[in-house]
Structure formats: C-alpha cells, structure tokens
C-alpha cells in the first residue's frame, strides 16, 4: 500500500455519490483507488446544507421546533427532545412526569424504528435484499403507533416546551405491547437468519476496526463508539429526563469491527423495548403539559447546553440567548458528522467493498451531517 500511495500514476479517483446507491443520500465520497484498494477517502459534504443553525437565529424558539425533526429524519423525536430540553433548561420549566414518560416511550420507539431502517439498509449494502422488507414490516407498526399520537410518520414535531402535544390512549398502550411481543419474535429470527449467516460474518468480522483512540480523536459517539469499547451513553453518563428511573443496560462490544457495531444496534433494540415496557408499567397519571409555561418563550440571557442520546449518538444543543424571542446563536452538535469524520482515517488501505461496508456500519443520515 505504501508504494501505491506514493506512486500517483497507479491510482485513479472514483466518485461515489452524490447520486449512488451506497451512500443513502447526497453524500459524496472522493475515493482515490489503487486497483480496488482505497488509498485516500475524502467525504465531500454540503449537498443538503439548509442552514438550520442560522434559521434558529431568525425564527422564534417555538418556530424552530419543526426544523429539529428534519435533521435526522430517522430519529426525529430525539432531536425534538434535545431542543425542547435545552430550551426548558434555559427557561427553568419543569416538565410533568407523565410527559417525561411519554417522551421516553416515543423516543425509544423511534430509536427502534431507526435501528430497523439501518438494519435493512445495511444488509442492502451488503447485497442481501430480503431483510429490508422484513425490517420495514416491523418498522411500519412503529410508524402507525407514532402516527396515532404525534400525527406524523417521519418528521415528528411532537414535543412542546413544557411537555408533549398530545396524550396517549389505551389503543396506543395496547399497540405498543403488541408490537413488543412481535418484535421479540422477529429479533431472534433476524439473529438466526442474518447475524449467524456465514457470508455476513465473513464480511463484517474484523472489517473496519476502529480503535478507542480513533473514537476519542474524532469525538465519535453512539453505537459507533460503543462498538469500540467506549462505554458512553448520554442516557447513563449525563442522565436527563426520567432515564435514571429505568433499569437498562448499555450494550458495549470491544472488537471495534463492523460486526461489533452491528451487534450494538441489535442489542439496543432489545434494551429500548425494556425501557418502553418499564415506562408503560410505571406510567403516572396527570397532565402532559406544564401548567405555567409562558406563552412567549424568552429564555434569560445566558449560555445553555443539553445533550441527548439520539439513535446515532450524542446530539447536543447549545443555546446562546440574549433574552429576546429568537436565539442569539444556536449550535447543534450532531453525531453523524463526528462519526463520518473518522471514515477517511479508518478506510485507508481497505478494499472498496469493505470500505463501503464500514461506511454503512457508521449509520449516517446525511441531512443531519450537513444541517
């Protein structure tokens, strides 16, 4: 590899994206290849840059809420949660307990649906078409459930400052219990048919190993970090909402390869179901909106930060308020951006197909990288 890297005549540049089946969106990879070996990988961003942060400075606090669901469209509720919690922290609003429980239930359902999309799409990257349709079948049930409470199926805007927009009913509770029952049947099936498949194991084991140092260097979080033995989950390490009341584990694998990241996400589906079950059992009665939420949101002057664990890692919202009805500065820290940054370092010297397997295992959502 060293020879090829120095000898420019042997290499050529292959453009993967912005329109390419492997990138799941408008990400562009400029790959310098020597034969099929990646000499240099350069992600090119910005094809779906929509200036969300700038929009935050021009819209009122409440008006910005729908924007959050349009960044990571696969786990929109986590983004709702991060932004709502940051503003609530700034304003000093206490959220009623029932609302916090509903937030946790819906966010965890959203996390499962996000992981299911990843599962299907990743197998598609690896050339297995069939699991996608099974995963989407399970995801469909979640979408139906979330649609019944939030009113939308993908870009949710369910959270409000001081609570949530809508209470749940008996049908939702029964539906979620039913879903968990079917998901507990599907998950072993996925493990039997997919995770234990010899071709899959050969393609993922020891492929794309990411060391702990690389994780720290690039600030990667979420399943990518937990697949490399970094035991960091915002829900446990910087608890927010009512997460401390639940008994759940943070799956951590130490191998750092694509298979470890795969297993972390599959295990997280089970852990999310455990959280939902406990939340449904303990669900307190009461209002779903704080009674004393001011009609006009004007956080006092200051600098506030709130992080939440989204499906792809730590999503942070930093608010700088000058006391008016718009933000002075809104900084969003999105996990996929950091997770993508390590791609060029790790993919060096890998084969094209392995590099794309690594890319898929990072579970990127492009609008969230570009923002």
């Amino acid at each position, binding site marked *: 590899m060293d020879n090829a890297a120095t000898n420019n005549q042997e290499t*050529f540049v*292959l453009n993967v994206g912005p329109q*390419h*089946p*492997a990138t799941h969106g408008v990400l562009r990879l400029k790959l310098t290849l020597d034969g*099929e070996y990646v000499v240099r990988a350069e992600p090119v961003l910005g094809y779906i840059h929509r200036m969300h942060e700038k929009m935050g400075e021009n819209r009122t606090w409440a008006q910005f809420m729908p924007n959050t669901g349009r960044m990571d469209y696969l786990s929109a509720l986590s983004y709702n949660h991060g932004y709502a919690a940051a503003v609530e922290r700034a304003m000093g609003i206490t959220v009623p307990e029932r609302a916090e429980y509903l937030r946790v239930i819906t966010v965890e359902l959203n996390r499962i649906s996000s992981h299911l999309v990843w599962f299907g799409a990743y*197998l*598609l*990257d*690896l*050339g*297995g*078409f*069939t699991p996608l*349709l*099974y995963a989407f*079948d399970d995801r469909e049930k979640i979408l139906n459930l979330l649609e019944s409470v939030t009113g939308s199926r993908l870009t949710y805007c369910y959270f409000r400052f001081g609570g949530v927009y809508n209470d749940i009913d008996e049908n939702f509770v029964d539906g979620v219990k039913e879903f968990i029952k079917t998901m507990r049947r599907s998950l072993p099936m996925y493990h039997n048919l997919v995770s234990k*498949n010899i*071709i*899959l194991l*050969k*393609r993922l084991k020891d492929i794309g190993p990411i060391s702990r140092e690389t994780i720290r260097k690039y600030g990667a979080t979420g399943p990518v970090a937990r697949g490399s033995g970094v035991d960091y989950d915002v829900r446990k390490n910087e608890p927010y909402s009512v997460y401390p009341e639940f008994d759940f584990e943070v799956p951590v694998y130490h191998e750092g390869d694509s298979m470890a990241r795969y297993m972390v996400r599959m295990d997280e589906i089970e852990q999310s179901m455990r959280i939902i079950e406990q939340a449904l059992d303990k669900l307190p009665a009461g209002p779903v909106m704080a009674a004393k939420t001011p009609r006009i949101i004007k956080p006092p002057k200051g600098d506030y930060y709130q992080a939440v664990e989204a499906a792809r890692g730590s999503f942070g919202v930093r608010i700088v308020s000058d006391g008016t009805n718009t933000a002075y500065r809104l900084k969003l820290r999105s996990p996929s951006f950091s997770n993508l940054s390590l791609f060029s370092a790790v993919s060096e010297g890998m*084969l*094209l*197909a*392995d590099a*794309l397997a690594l890319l*898929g295992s990072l579970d990127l959502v492009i609008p969230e990288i570009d923002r």
Partner: protein
Amino acid sequence: MDSELIRVIAFLVGIIAFAALNAAYLVWLERKGAAHIQRRIGPKEVGPFGLLQPMVDGIKLMTKQILIPDGVDPVLFRLAPILAMVPAIMSFVTIPFSETLVARNINVGLLMIFAFASVNVLALLLGGWASNNKYAVISAARAVSQNIAYEIPMLITVITMVMITGTLNLNEIVAQQPNISQWYIFRFSASPLMPVAFLIFFICSLAETNRAPFDLGEAESELVAGFHTEYSSMGFGLFFMGEYANIVIGCSLAVVLFLGGWQDPFGLYPGVWWFLLKLYLLIFTVIWIRWTFPRTQFYGLLNLSWKILIPVSMFNLLLTAGFLKVF
C-alpha cells in the same frame, strides 16, 4: 428442401425461442419468487398473475433509445451485448432435452459448451472496457478474475466426470443413468465424493454466471450496475437475457451430468418433461439462493475457489482415478 435443412432451421428457431422465452419468464419467476420470499405479491397487474409482464418489459426495452455515450469504443460497445447472448444460445445446440430432441448430437458436446461458455466472460470484459466508465472497468476486472478462478474447479470436476463416463457426448452420458440409483450424483461406486462433486459444479456454475451470492460484477451498492452501467435499451436487455440463458445452460449441464437428464428416476417414463422438471427445480434453487444470502466479499470468493474448491476437486479427481484403476 432436404429434411436435414428443415431440421436445422426448426431447431434454430426453437432454440432461440426457448432461450428468449426462458430469459423472459425466468425474470417473471425471479420476481415472483423474490416477492414471496419477501412477503410481497410481486407482479400482478399485467395479465393473470402478471404473466404478461415480461412481454411488456420486452416491448419497453425494445422501444427505448440505444444511447452510445461519448468516449466509448463504438465497435466493442455494440459487440459486447451480442457476444453475451450468442454463445449462450449456441450452447443449447448440444443439450439433450430428450433422447431425440437434441439439435446436434455431437461427440464433443461437453467440450463445445465449455468453449462457448468461456466466450461469455469476454463479453463482460469488452462491455466493461468499452464503456469508458470506471465502475464498469472495475466490474469487468472482477468478473474476469472470478470466472478464471471458478472455471478451474469446474473443469476439474468435469474431467472427473469424463473419466467416469468415458464420453463427451451428452446424450450418452444421460443414457448411462437410467434410474435414480445410477444417477451420477449418487454413483458412489465411481467415487464416494460424487455429491460433493455436484455441489462444486453447482457453486461454480453460480459463480460463472455471476449470480448471487457471487454477483460481484454488478454489486449495485458498490459499482452501481457494474459492466452494464452505460447500457440502455436492448443493449442492457441482451446482457440480461444472456445472464438468464447462462443460468439455464449451467443448470441443464448439472441435470445432464449428475441428475440423469431426461431419464425417469424410476426408469418408467423417460422424456423431456423429466428434464424440464429437474431443470426448473435447480433454477428455482438458484433464485432462492439469490434472495436469501448477502453478497460475498471478493477475496472471500477467491479464497473459496483456490483454498477449498480446487483442492477438493483435485482430491476427487485423484480418488476417482484410483477407483477406476482398482475396480
């Protein structure tokens, strides 16, 4: 006109019709099979059970414009799809559909099929090379090294078979297997490894035809559409039909060599129906595999060939030679 000429023309028309019809309806079968494996319905709008879908698709492909992009090699670019289809049709000439239903009962039929099968890889190479597209070139390079890697164990297995049968004439090979206990897949007296030989042959024919899980040449998540990325209209159509015709050839050969061809398993009613039944069962297996497994990695594929299939088939060859000498 003498009867021999009429016979040749009838077979020519018949073989082209058979190949084209198979290519069209295997696409339908593939889509239906995939749909049911994936809990979907599949094509159902055009005709009963979507049976007219292949016709409509064919008309659509034929009426589309053939785009010749700038910078392609104009001759090779047009030649490649034809080279993909013609050898596949030529190979049908020696396939014995039944005792009498064979276009040309040549003594070196087996050799002829392998000669034409090797031309197929040339078509992929030319198509990829002439396209002036990086994805296509990578794909062509993959297809060539894959085909070379898998032709070796396949040919070693076929040599083993020829040693046992003592002939290259496909009709004679079938005639040696009058009932199920004498099918070559179960002919343990020739070599205890006969089922393994069948498996090697089947895996190799999957790899030879670039079918999943060995479809590295057209790995859509890496190489978009592989060697036919730049092809539109019937250029693409011919590559597509060639692929399915090659599947039919590969499976026919497996049926003839190992599964008794047109012979009845119980030796009662031999005929073309048995051949077709066995053929389509094998083809269904091919489709089944495609929609069940993810794609292999390239070195995984080459490792399988060089480290497992070639040593095992060589061992089988030596074992068979020993058996032939001793008994």
